[in-house]
């Protein structure tokens, strides 16, 4: 485990502090621990901003294992926003942040929306294989239902359609584009 403060050296000192009846545990390297002691654990300043990021961080408090917090510094290479900054201000810096932070976004999005998967409009210009893949998903679901209902004749037709679409996905969706 790396030191929480500098994220560079291994954490060898484990400090426990009770603040407002809440137990806080710090995992620090020796150097950072000494600095902390000197400043006598400055209390985090209270602000609306921290209240907001507190909401964003809810699951790190309720779950033993923080599931969506990186142990190393994560930064968007396009706009330079760090993941920590994102959690503080609650806003992304650019569209690439979604890729840079992708490993940690799902708990947040699920809490906000109850889902982390887009099912709405798709831009026409977006890679047409997106549409193809979604059609494929729907067809596979349909196939399963048909098999369960033992409607094998229809199921065979759907299976052929799936095979055709799978081929198109492999060809990069060109056939699909030509037709639509």
């Amino acid at each position, binding site marked *: 485990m790396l030191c929480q403060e500098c994220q560079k050296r291994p954490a060898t000192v484990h400090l426990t502090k009770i603040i407002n009846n809440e137990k806080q545990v710090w995992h620090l390297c020796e150097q950072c621990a000494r600095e902390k002691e000197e400043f006598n654990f400055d209390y985090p300043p209270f602000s609306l901003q921290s209240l907001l990021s507190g909401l964003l961080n809810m699951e790190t408090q309720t779950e033993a294992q923080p599931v969506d917090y990186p142990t190393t510094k994560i930064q968007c290479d396009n706009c330079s926003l760090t993941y920590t900054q994102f959690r503080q201000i609650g*806003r992304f810096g650019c569209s690439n942040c979604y890729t840079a932070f992708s490993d940690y976004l799902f708990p947040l999005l699920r809490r906000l929306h109850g889902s982390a998967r887009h*099912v709405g409009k798709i831009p026409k*210009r977006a890679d047409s294989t997106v549409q193809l893949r979604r059609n494929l998903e729907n067809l596979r679901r349909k196939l399963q239902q048909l098999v369960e209902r033992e409607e094998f004749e229809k199921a065979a037709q759907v299976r052929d359609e799936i095979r055709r679409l799978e081929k198109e996905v492999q060809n990069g969706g060109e056939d699909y584009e030509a037709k639509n």
Partner: protein
Amino acid sequence: MRQRIKAGVVSKWLENTGPDSEVVLSSRIRLARNLRNIPFPYLASDSQTAEVAKQVRGLLQEKPDVFADIHYYAVSELTPLERQALLERHLISPALLKEDHNSAVLLREDESLSIMINEEDHLRFQCLLPGLQLESAWKMADHYDNLFEEALDYAFDEQLGYLTVCPTNVGTGLRASVMVHLPALNLTKRLNRVLSAIAQVGLAVRGMYGEGSEITGNLVQISNQITLGQSDEDIIKNLFGVTKQIVEQELQARQILLNESRDQIADRVNRSFGILKHAHLMSSQEGMQLLSDVRLGIDLGLIEDKKGLALKELLVLQRPANLQLLTGKTLDVFERDRERAKLMRQYLA
């Protein structure tokens, strides 16, 4: 010389038409869109936001016939009064004015469509129509979104949909909302119960002027909160269904008022009508409340409306900036109260 913002009433949503217009004042669809890899306005450099604005202007110039009825207004070119007037007409958001990142607004001549550039997101399409017309507003927003998408490189992700500044908008980037007039639910003390039921089905409830604004004049805005995991159509259908139920509840409450306290309600709305017709000083808060009463009176048949009074127009015209645009004068608070009362007297005489 550049086009000025028109004084008086031109916004489409202020027309007294549309389905369920006795309860639903307006329907709004908003779509948030961003350009790939250009930092979002709050983080972008001046040249980056200028680039976004340039791309949009380029698109308008490329297809002059398609965008013939759309005007481009840079925020920096608008007078403070014009900015405020657009806010009061619900055509722009406070966020567009907060910081000028080469921000601009595109307005269709009938003001049914506005497209904000470099607001919180790079692009925000907004369609506002009178009455309960979520479906039509969606089709219109969708249409312009498609036109823009042909020319601009949108930030879209297969898994997460349209990528936005705030994680609360990601996915469809869609905010659908209706503004409803619920005087009878308020008078029969049922409003809070209905509003908390709405909140329980995952919809947000606000006053007429957005987040944090109080509920004045019995006007309530209801909108979706979830943008991920639901399709645009489902979000709209859901809000439509809930709105239909609210309309029904309000109409029931109006019937109860008529059956059980006809004299009291007739007295109240006609008193309000009298004040509007005869007062010489009026605050905009009082104006909103009285207009709400008169509208209820007309809807209940307790006030005769031979001329087809444009009460919805008055709601916006009486606001400070629109009032000053209309009179063509800069007015202090006292002068506004006087001009507002005069406006009401003229309209309702």
